[in-house]
């Protein structure tokens, strides 16, 4: 797979698609060049971004496309929703993880984890199509 190969697949916009999505990631992600942490981070990032699309994205599309590009020194996973309002996950305010338990607010934790653990998070929006991309370096 190493060497600018891209594989894509579409999934129903539902929590039930997660099992298929994880299988797709395991099938396509490179075995030797991506360590256990990198694999964990990509599973986490894709789940958080996908479930946000399931919960919050508007529009008529009931499918989300995942594109996995394995390049020389990194893996990039794009999640593409072809019909939704804009929502930029890179611009959310930080989560206060030091707040006492009684004062902690719900929401934002998944994106906080991605921004802290993944090597890159990017967002593009054009003609109602949203693409959120997460990247992880290879060894």
């Amino acid at each position, binding site marked *: 797979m190493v060497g600018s190969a891209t594989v894509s697949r579409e999934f129903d916009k539902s*929590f*039930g698609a*997660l*099992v298929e999505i*994880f299988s797709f990631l395991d099938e396509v992600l490179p075995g030797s060049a991506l360590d*256990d*942490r990198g694999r*964990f981070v990509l*599973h*986490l990032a894709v*789940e*958080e971004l996908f*479930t946000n699309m399931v919960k919050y994205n508007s529009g008529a599309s009931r499918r989300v496309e995942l594109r996995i590009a394995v390049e020389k020194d990194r893996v990039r996973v794009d999640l593409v929703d072809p019909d939704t309002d804009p929502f930029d996950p890179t611009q959310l305010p930080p989560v206060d*993880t*030091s*707040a006492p*338990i*009684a004062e*902690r607010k*719900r929401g934002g*934790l*998944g994106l*906080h*984890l991605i921004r*802290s*653990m993944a090597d890159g998070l990017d967002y593009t929006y054009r003609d109602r199509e949203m693409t959120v991309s997460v990247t992880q370096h290879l060894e």
Partner: protein
Amino acid sequence: MLEITTSEDGTIRLRGRFDASQVKSATPAFDGVRDSCTVDCSELSYISSAGLGLLFATQRRLIDAGKGLRLANLNPHIREVFRIAGFDRVFEIT
């Protein structure tokens, strides 16, 4: 897939992956926790914010009653997730 078992001493054992698709089926087990107990994570391979959310809700309810969950045997990646989430200050982690 996530398996949840409870032993006679009250220890809850999690096995598998605690992702968003597992929260609905896992909720009754955690809603039923009424006392302090240990959650053994030695066979838990993965957790996302959805799983964290259910553990957090359980912990908040227990702390209000003067009790709490102790989390044991987290793998390094899950331990990192707890640290980044600030949950290492919310739970006793051994």
